[in-house]
């Protein structure tokens, strides 16, 4: 019994000594920590959080990688889809959201957001027909719309043959492939069909996911690409980069100026150049079915969403610095990955928008 008490007392004393020692140490340690943190803050700077569209993810991550090396600012971008990006910015869990479909100005105002375009890309119809090379098949507006409406059922349909007299088209059913998930790509594609076909406009409309009259759905650009490659007689639509990477047979489309055009960076640029960026309210710009001889008809921009009223000026400034750097120095990387960088004039309009609209406790962030 006595022994135990003794042991206990010794342990107690030891514990108290230890606690005192630690207590003494704590203030000096905390001081040291504080200094270290200050140094790190100036050296390592900020981490930006963004979420949204999957389509620009490859270029955003490339830009972020290079930018981190140059400036030390880290970007953490989660490609969870445009819808997810909008939801996340609404919940204020990220510093910026990203969407392939532009939001309507009243909707933006309702939440207090601004949007601006970051990058341009094209959506390309791709086919898998025996003996048809990339770029060989030509489709007019009516043909494209009627195929996706399920009205043209076979590849050797007379109307397709009339447009493509030099091709030998097989007697095979057309298998339409669309996106199964909601997608900005689908938004751009259905927006085009909406514009060129009265029936599409009436029955289906423009959205990130629609009630498809025919066909099957693949998950993501990769899913659509996989289905088109594996199903004979298939036609689907993917982002240009996916068509190139998978060496898929793209289709030539008839644009509004009456020319059959190939999907290339030049034709996307032509479509973007024709747009009236200055007068578009809230950058609500849709690049489908643009005038111009060389314009690719299914072109679209990917947008960034930010709050007009920023709580943390330093974070907002860091985000704008990053976007500014992308406009300034990101073109080469973008073209490498088959995206079209924003024209200089558009970048200037965006910068003006930042100056005019973005505020943190009343002060403008971008000067």
């Amino acid at each position, binding site marked *: 019994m006595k022994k135990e008490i003794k042991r206990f007392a010794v342990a107690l004393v030891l514990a108290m000594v230890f606690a005192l020692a630690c207590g003494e140490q704590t203030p000096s340690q905390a001081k040291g920590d504080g200094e270290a943190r200050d140094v790190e803050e100036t050296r390592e700077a900020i981490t930006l959080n963004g979420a949204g569209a999957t389509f620009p993810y490859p270029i955003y991550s490339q830009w972020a990688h290079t930018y981190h090396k140059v400036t030390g600012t880290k970007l953490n971008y989660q490609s*969870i*889809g*445009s*819808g*997810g990006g*909008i*939801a996340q910015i609404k919940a204020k869990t990220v510093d910026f959201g990203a969407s392939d479909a532009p939001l309507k100005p009243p909707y933006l105002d309702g939440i207090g957001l601004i949007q601006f375009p970051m990058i341009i890309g094209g959506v390309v119809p791709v086919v898998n027909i025996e003996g048809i090379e990339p770029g060989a098949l030509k489709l007019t507006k009516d043909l494209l719309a009627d195929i996706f409406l399920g009205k043209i059922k076979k590849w050797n349909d007379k109307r397709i043959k009339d447009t493509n007299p030099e091709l030998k088209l097989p007697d*095979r*059913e057309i*298998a339409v492939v669309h996106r*199964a*998930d*909601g*997608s900005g790509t689908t938004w751009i594609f259905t927006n085009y069909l909406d514009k060129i076909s009265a029936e599409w406009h009436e029955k*289906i*409309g*423009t*959205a*990130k*996911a*629609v*009630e*498809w009259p025919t*066909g*099957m*759905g*693949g*998950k993501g650009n990769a899913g659509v690409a*996989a*289905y088109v490659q*594996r*199903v*004979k*007689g*298939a036609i689907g639509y993917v982002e240009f980069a996916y068509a190139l990477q998978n060496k898929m047979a793209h289709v030539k489309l008839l644009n509004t100026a009456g020319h059959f055009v190939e999907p290339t960076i030049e034709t996307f640029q032509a479509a973007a150049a024709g747009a009236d960026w200055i007068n578009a309210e809230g950058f609500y710009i849709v690049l489908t079915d643009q005038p111009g001889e060389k314009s690719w008809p299914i072109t679209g921009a990917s947008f960034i969403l930010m709050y007009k009223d920023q709580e943390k000026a330093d974070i907002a400034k860091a985000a704008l610095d990053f976007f500014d750097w992308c406009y300034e120095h990101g073109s080469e990387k973008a073209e490498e990955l088959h995206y079209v960088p924003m024209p200089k004039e558009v970048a200037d309009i965006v910068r003006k928008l930042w100056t005019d609209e973005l505020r943190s406790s009343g002060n403008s962030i971008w000067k």
Partner: protein
Amino acid sequence: MTAIRKKSAGASKSDLVYRLVAVGAAAVVLILMAGLMLELTVNSWPSIRKFGVGFLGSTSWNPVTEEFGALSSIFGTLVSTAIAMIIAVPLSLLIALFLVELAPPAISRPVGYAIELLAAVPSIIFGMWGLFVFAPFMADHVQPVLRDRLGFLPLFDGPPMGIGMLTAGIILALMVLPFITAVVRDVFRMVPPVVKEASYGMGSTTWEVTRRVTVKYGFSGLLGAVFLGLGRAVGETMAVTFVIGNSHDVSSSLFAAGNSIASTLANEFTEASEPVYLSSLIELGLVLFVMTLLIQIAAQLWIRRVAQKAGGGL
């Protein structure tokens, strides 16, 4: 004396703790179930209020006008599961019988291991294999033959695309096959040899022993195995999403693309930003939850009745 009493008091105390912990652990399951049900119902309330019972009977799935119905998903889930069970149940029964009754240990052991390994393959692997290997094979070699021979049936009409309900059903069958086989094999193994020997002793053939004794003796266990496979097939997600074609249509043709509840959820959940859309998806989840629950209840009732009536041994 006192020492013993102390000890027993300590024992009953530890017993109490043990009991409380065990009851608590069991309660977690019930609380989890109730919580899931509640959460699903609450979150699908906007959709339930908007569409009512009509949700279950409507085939429209239109995110633009926000008109949603579950019929095509329920249909797809039931049809793909039915195809899977029609193929997997007889096949796994035969495999199990072969392993238990006919095969010498030198064969039955490695085959048994192979089946257990197959059960451990992740479902995404089945999905990818289904999309890249099996679907083209179906399109080139199976579906054209079916269409030529049986095309007069609406079931086998339509373009052979490889992707669709039939392919999804077969992939599902391959996935549940090892589960059912493994359980059925164990059930058959538990039939006491003395019962079988008695039957042989009365001059029965192997087939008669199998049919009259082994299968009958283990029938309730067999049913359990089937329902285990069924439960897995109903909720299977990734593999089905890869090959079912993901279209919100109800088609009489097994070649046509369709969707299941699980595949629709996997595809559309991330991008559903409008409240009614999201709520409809959650209601789909609720429907799947209830479906699985009903299947399990039916299974339990059936197994109990079979066990009472036939007086099987397991």
